[in-house]
């Protein structure tokens, strides 16, 4: 019930807490790696540098080798590009459109709500494998197509969740006040409803991010997007899963990478910097 104490430091009119800062740092580190990966990887990601497969960690091959004997360190670093980049883009699109649509439906109500809800329900009941295959067949495979597919798969869920929250807010008096002021739907959505549902929506965002990170690897098996030897972290886990009985770093490291990123994103969301409102008072 009590708000998390605004402990920790303040900066630029916001207060931060330690967990949030650490989470943010982890994310930033991964983002930097994503940006600079091509210049810092020790080996080309396609090169087979180890005679053994699932090789252990050792000098030169700091994270061991994968199932073909490729350098795991390079692959994980490069994988960051795709996992961070594609997943963030996709989850942003999915949540943004889903939440916007959900709030719009709740605010406008009536047949707009009914049609949108039914349409998105229908979309959600089409199996994603079928959907992925159709996308490949129709527009071919590319990273933008991959991002859009991931987004489209997760829009209905974000929509439903946001709508459920927004419908409750929509019955409040302050919504009526804004309505009789003649406010546009866009304002009602963005300024009256959103601030009240932003926390659960962000929590949802964090989760969807995790799902997308994992689904990403699945779609590459349908031929969407990433082409070998490129691989996102999920795909790295998948292609090296045979190393699990040997506790090969090739399967453990990408799993840890996924966990570090997804947990950080969610912890950051739980511990977002808070705006200090009475700074000049």
């Amino acid at each position, binding site marked *: 019930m009590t708000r998390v104490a605004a402990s920790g430091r303040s900066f630029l009119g916001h207060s931060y807490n330690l967990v949030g800062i650490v989470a943010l740092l982890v994310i930033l580190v991964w983002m930097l790696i994503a940006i600079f990966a091509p210049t810092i990887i020790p080996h080309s990601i*396609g090169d087979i540098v180890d005679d053994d*497969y*699932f090789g252990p960690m050792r000098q030169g091959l700091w994270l061991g080798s994968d199932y*073909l004997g490729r350098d795991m360190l390079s692959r994980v670093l490069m994988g960051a590009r795709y996992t961070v980049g594609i997943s963030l883009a996709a989850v942003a699109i999915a949540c943004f459109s889903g939440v916007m649509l959900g709030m719009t439906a709740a605010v406008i109500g009536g047949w707009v709500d009914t049609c949108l809800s039914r349409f998105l329900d229908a979309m959600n009941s089409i199996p994603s494998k079928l959907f992925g295959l159709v996308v490949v067949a129709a527009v071919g495979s590319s990273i933008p197509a991959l991002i859009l597919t991931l987004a489209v798969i997760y829009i209905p869920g974000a929509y439903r969740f946001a709508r459920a929250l927004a419908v409750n807010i929509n019955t409040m008096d302050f919504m009526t006040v804004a309505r009789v002021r003649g406010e546009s739907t866009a304002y009602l959505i963005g300024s009256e409803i959103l601030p009240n549902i932003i926390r659960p929506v962000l929590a949802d965002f964090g989760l969807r991010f995790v799902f997308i990170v994992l689904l990403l690897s699945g779609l*590459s098996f349908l031929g969407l997007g990433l082409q*070998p030897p490129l691989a996102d972290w999920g795909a790295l886990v998948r292609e090296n899963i045979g190393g699990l009985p040997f506790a090969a770093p090739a399967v453990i490291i990408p799993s840890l990478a996924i966990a570090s990123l997804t947990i950080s994103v969610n912890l950051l969301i739980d511990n977002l910097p808070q705006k200090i409102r009475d700074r000049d008072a």
Partner: protein
Amino acid sequence: RATNAVAATPISGGTFKAAGWSSSTADTLDPAKASLSTDYVRCCSLYNRLTFLDKDGVTQMELAESFDSKDAKTWTVKLRKGVTFHDGKDLTADDVVYSLKRHLDKSVGSKVAKIAAQMTGFKAVDKSTVEITLADPNADLPTILALHHFMIVQDGTTDFSKGNGTGAFVLQTFEPGVRSVVTKNKNYWKSGKPYLDSFEFIAISDDSARVNALLSGDINFAASINPRAMKLIGGQQGFELSKTTSGNYTDLNIRLDMNPGNKADFVAGMKYLVNREQIVKSALRGLGEIGNDQPVSPANIFHNPDVKPKAFDPDKAKFHFQKSGLLGQSIPVIASDAATSSIDMAVIIQAAGADIGMKLDVQRVPSDGYWDNYWLKAPIHFGNINPRPTPDILFSLLYASNAPWNESQYKSEKFDKLLIEARGSLDQAKRKEIYNQMQVMVSEEAGTIIPAYISNVDALSSKVKGLEANPLGGMMGYAMAEYLWLEA
């Protein structure tokens, strides 16, 4: 690697549970339609063929007692007597005629319709004699009929869900895409066989799940395991591995009638760029034999051992690419999980190309629909060819000018002539010589790069005895159920 020594006396009894790697709702008990290993295993346990291939690749008689022909065109087949179907009916010449003739019926959708098409006449001479007439002479007919699709079913059968054959087991349960259970045929015509009381076959498509099921004791046999799991099984007590190198291969096809394959130097360059040793070592984890672009594998008696593997030579490759003017251009290469190991091979070739400035753009496409949409169609793509018993089948399916699956669109009049000549000849030595020559031609001229023959490794509990390798494929050419027994 472990070999399963044949113990002295087989023991009868026991339930054998084995897992293959693929299954689908399209699973069938109709031998003509059989398409997956799962189907072959089931059909082998329920039906018999006229002939079969033994472990050395030599054709042996099964339901047939003899195959005779003077001109390799008209064949007389004597059938074994005293063979009965599971429902009690005797095996007759009519059953054989029906079984073979079905393949010509388009509505059956036979997988070997093309091969069967050369059989133009079937005649039940008497109750146990069948006469088969071919369009053109073919000395390989007894071997061809050892293909799994040519299993003998009862005359008039259209509903195959009963699995009514002459085989070693009787069908108990069959759930497509899930499992089948068969039980010992007490009236089996091969005396003493089978040893097993019942045999359950399921499919576990996930590689590690299959191995784990074996290790946990849920199954006795895991077919076709991932080479990387060998380490795991090798280290465990009570489990063994059985390796078969049959003629299965994954090949890189460069269509000679399309850009860039129409530039001879590009094809030549690619042949030098493929690091066969690396592929065997890394992609196949040593479970394969280096190939040199000849489809006839060492497991086949007609294999030409004089065709030597082309050495990996990036410099020569670069020279050819430069000559073809394609160096530096981005060339798409289609790979898919549908063609075993093709993605790994593609990546290896891609990396080699990158070193010399040859950009190969590997495109992974869905395995779903791969054979329909990309195989044979894309300018550069991978194929995967299952073992065939004879060079004639391989060449006429894959390399003759009119071959239905001419993967690289190789066309040579000389080759076509040689093919017909060898087919009609009953002289083994002469055929061997012709086939040798043809293998050299394919290796040199066609656009199909066959870097390796892929070995198949089955893992099994040490209690399972009697397993031998067979050139037709793993699981003793899919027919293991009939020969295995379980140690108490």
